[in-house]
């Protein structure tokens, strides 16, 4: 057995060149083959690749799709976020649990099936959803859960759970997913008719500097959320010296509630890859990497086929055809379930085979990125915009949207609306208009930009979607009347507490403290002073955290405290004697009472108002 392990791990390592910067691929392959990366396998990986043992362990412990102890042959990962909860996650989880006879986080006694929960898998428009190994299953019900378990018990083949394929390329033989695109509104830019190869030939007819100028003239800003001007980023990377430069397409769409990249990769992969190629030409890079989140692994064979087709069509490879031929190729780097890897410097760490700890800046990736070379990291949607700009010209692009925010934005709308899905709207569209399109006008609150964005109330639905006002990477979660505000805030905080990498204290401790405080307030044990304390803590996290995750993790609290103050105020109360209402002596002595077999003298006689 150990010989099998050794020879297999050796083969896997060799297939990745024994390269310690490819630990992600090696660990993923070992996980796929053995259901875990056991300590013995880590020893071998370390020995063969020369990566320190502790780095291998550190990597395996970091990513949620990797584990050091064995998982079942089939792993069912239920998507647990606020949208799925609203659509019956708890019922479905219970059905799976009952049918399998195990709890969440457990594996059946025969070692065949594991049941787990995971953060948003990019299917909020068809929630509740789950991944069965790599296969997405959508719109789950308790009946469907029982069917899935029965099916797996019979054949153990997740692919056979797909009884009907979704629309568009979801039905492609290499995808064959039951996922639906839910493309509700097609706009004039991203989803416009494409002429394959045109953008690249246009670009190659210009000098790299002219290409950058075109992107600058279109005033294209990053679509991932931060909104950094894309042309400027490219200019920095072009100006930086380095033998090898890189272009990375960020397809680690992890912000809960966004799923636009899923649809772009399904329907417009050519636009994404063309954008990367153009970026490569502009900055002088020969190598591109598409960092694909682990949750979208089901798209990989299809994307590889698209890349192969582009190579044979001369749109990729040693000689990209055009007026100024140049060499450029793209490989796909799989992620393994870590939200923070969507942050560009954490993504670079991950690409280099390490845990996704964000880097200190400067140096910025454009100066010193992947393997130390100047690197441009662009969101998948940004890259599609690049292709459109080179196809139709900057003027055509910039005539859409508003002055500071040109073009269109893809919105992923989910939650309490009749038409969840993808909407391509020009920047400057009021939130109310988005709600009208999606038929969710009676919302009492909307989370714009995912958990790290803002929770806005009805009075602010007139605000517009753009970088100056309601900035968003695309996630729009709609909450209808009757939803519990604190439950929403709590779910978002839980997400951040889970995803915090733990490196810096403001984020690691801050998320845990905020979570506890919100729990206290929701339980009716909060005091007015708690609200001020939460605000103070949130601002500290904003100011002192190391990366974007910690800097925005308090946003659900900070924005809801401003926009929904009366909800909080109604829940908190001052204690007349200055006692903390959150402390319950009865509970605190319960364990000692059990251990000693005698009752507390003080507990149980506390005055009313506390219990």
């Amino acid at each position, binding site marked *: 057995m150990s010989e099998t392990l050794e020879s297999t791990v050796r083969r896997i390592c060799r297939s990745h060149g024994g390269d310690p910067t490819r630990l992600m691929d090696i660990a993923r392959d070992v996980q796929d083959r053995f259901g875990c990366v056991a300590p013995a396998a880590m020893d071998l990986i370390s020995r063969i690749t020369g990566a320190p043992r502790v780095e291998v362990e550190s990597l395996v412990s970091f990513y949620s799709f990797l584990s050091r102890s064995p998982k079942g042959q089939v792993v069912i990962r239920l998507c647990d976020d606020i949208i799925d909860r609203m659509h019956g996650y708890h019922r479905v989880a219970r059905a799976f649990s009952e049918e399998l006879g195990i709890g969440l986080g457990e594996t059946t006694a025969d070692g065949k099936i594991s049941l787990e929960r995971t953060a948003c898998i990019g299917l909020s428009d068809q929630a509740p959803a789950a991944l069965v190994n790599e296969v997405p299953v959508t719109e789950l019900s308790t009946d469907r859960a029982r069917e899935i378990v029965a099916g797996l018990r019979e054949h153990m083949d997740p692919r056979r759970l797909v009884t009907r394929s979704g629309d568009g390329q979801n039905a492609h033989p290499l995808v064959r997913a039951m996922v639906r695109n839910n493309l509700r509104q097609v706009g004039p830019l991203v989803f416009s008719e494409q002429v394959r190869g045109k953008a690249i030939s246009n670009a190659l007819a210009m000098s790299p500097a002219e290409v950058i100028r075109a992107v600058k003239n279109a005033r294209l800003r990053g679509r991932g959320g931060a909104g950094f001007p894309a042309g400027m980023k490219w200019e920095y990377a072009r100006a930086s010296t380095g033998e090898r430069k890189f272009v990375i397409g960020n397809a680690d769409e992890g912000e809960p509630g966004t799923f636009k990249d899923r649809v772009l990769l399904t329907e417009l992969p050519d636009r994404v890859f063309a954008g990367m190629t153009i970026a490569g030409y502009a900055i002088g890079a020969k190598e591109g990497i598409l960092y694909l989140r682990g949750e979208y692994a089901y798209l990989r064979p299809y994307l590889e086929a698209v890349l192969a087709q582009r190579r044979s069509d001369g749109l990729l490879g040693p000689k990209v055809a055009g007026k100024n031929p140049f060499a450029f190729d793209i490989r796909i780097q799989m992620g393994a379930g870590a939200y923070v890897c969507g942050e560009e410097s954490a993504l670079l760490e991950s690409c280099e085979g390490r845990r996704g700890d964000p880097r200190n800046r400067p140096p910025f990736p454009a100066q010193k990125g992947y393997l130390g070379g100047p690197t441009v990291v662009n969101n998948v949607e940004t890259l599609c915009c690049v292709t459109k700009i080179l196809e139709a010209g900057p003027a055509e692009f910039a005539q859409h949207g508003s002055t500071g925010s040109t073009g269109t934005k893809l919105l992923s709308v989910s939650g309490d609306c009749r038409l969840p899905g993808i909407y391509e709207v020009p920047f400057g569209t009021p939130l109310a208009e988005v709600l009208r399109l999606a038929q969710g006008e009676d919302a009492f609150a909307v989370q714009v930009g995912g958990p790290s964005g803002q929770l806005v109330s009805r009075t602010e639905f007139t605000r517009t979607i753009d970088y100056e006002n309601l900035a968003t990477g695309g996630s729009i979660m709609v909450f209808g009347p009757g939803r519990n505000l604190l439950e929403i805030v709590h779910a978002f905080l839980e997400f951040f507490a889970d995803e915090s990498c733990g490196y810096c204290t403001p984020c690691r401790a801050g998320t845990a403290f905020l979570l506890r405080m919100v729990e206290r307030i929701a339980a009716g044990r909060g005091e007015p002073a708690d609200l001020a304390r939460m605000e103070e803590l949130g601002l500290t996290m904003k100011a002192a955290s190391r990366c974007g995750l910690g800097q925005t993790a308090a946003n659900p609290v900070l924005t809801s405290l401003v926009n929904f103050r009366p909800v909080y105020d109604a829940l908190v109360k001052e204690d007349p004697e200055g006692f903390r209402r959150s402390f319950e002596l009865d509970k605190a002595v319960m*364990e000692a009472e059990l251990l000693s077999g005698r009752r507390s003298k003080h507990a149980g006689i506390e005055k009313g108002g506390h219990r």
Partner: protein
Amino acid sequence: MSARPGERQKPKIATVSLAGCFGCHMSILDIDERILDLAKVVEFSRSPINDLKKFDGRCAVGIVEGGCANEENVEVLREFRRKCDILVSLGDCATMGGIPALRNSIPLSECLETAYLDGPTVVNPLGRIPSDEEIPLLLDKVYPCHEIVKIDLFLPGCPPSAEAIFSALTGILGKSRPDLPYELLKYD
């Protein structure tokens, strides 16, 4: 120490050590002869310094050393809250739980077993964990004071220096917000 006839009623101060080591109280004594200056303007109520066990009236200031490790600590702290206008958490145990809070990640049963049964230096022929009506029940974990009652001021340090304590007290008694320079604030 009660007010002599004709003398203006002096504000009272109470102090207590809960789950602490009395180190903070030693630091109070470290103000040395300045305690005489203090005695001119205040009167000590319940405190280990004068060994008074009960409050003899409402206090202007209550100084609490140590966090809450057992039910009695909670009762005493709550009494301090009821009887004192301004309550001060003195030292790291009161403000953060300190050394006693090291047990917070260990189950209570394990703490007691190690302390009374399994520890390498334990001599306990009866093999019993002490349990008597007189012994207050331990809490599930050690709490900093502000998680039990509202605390008005925090003076960190292990212990806070005599200088810091004296500056803070004179500040409070002078009805001004104590202005402690950076050098006097130490988080250990």
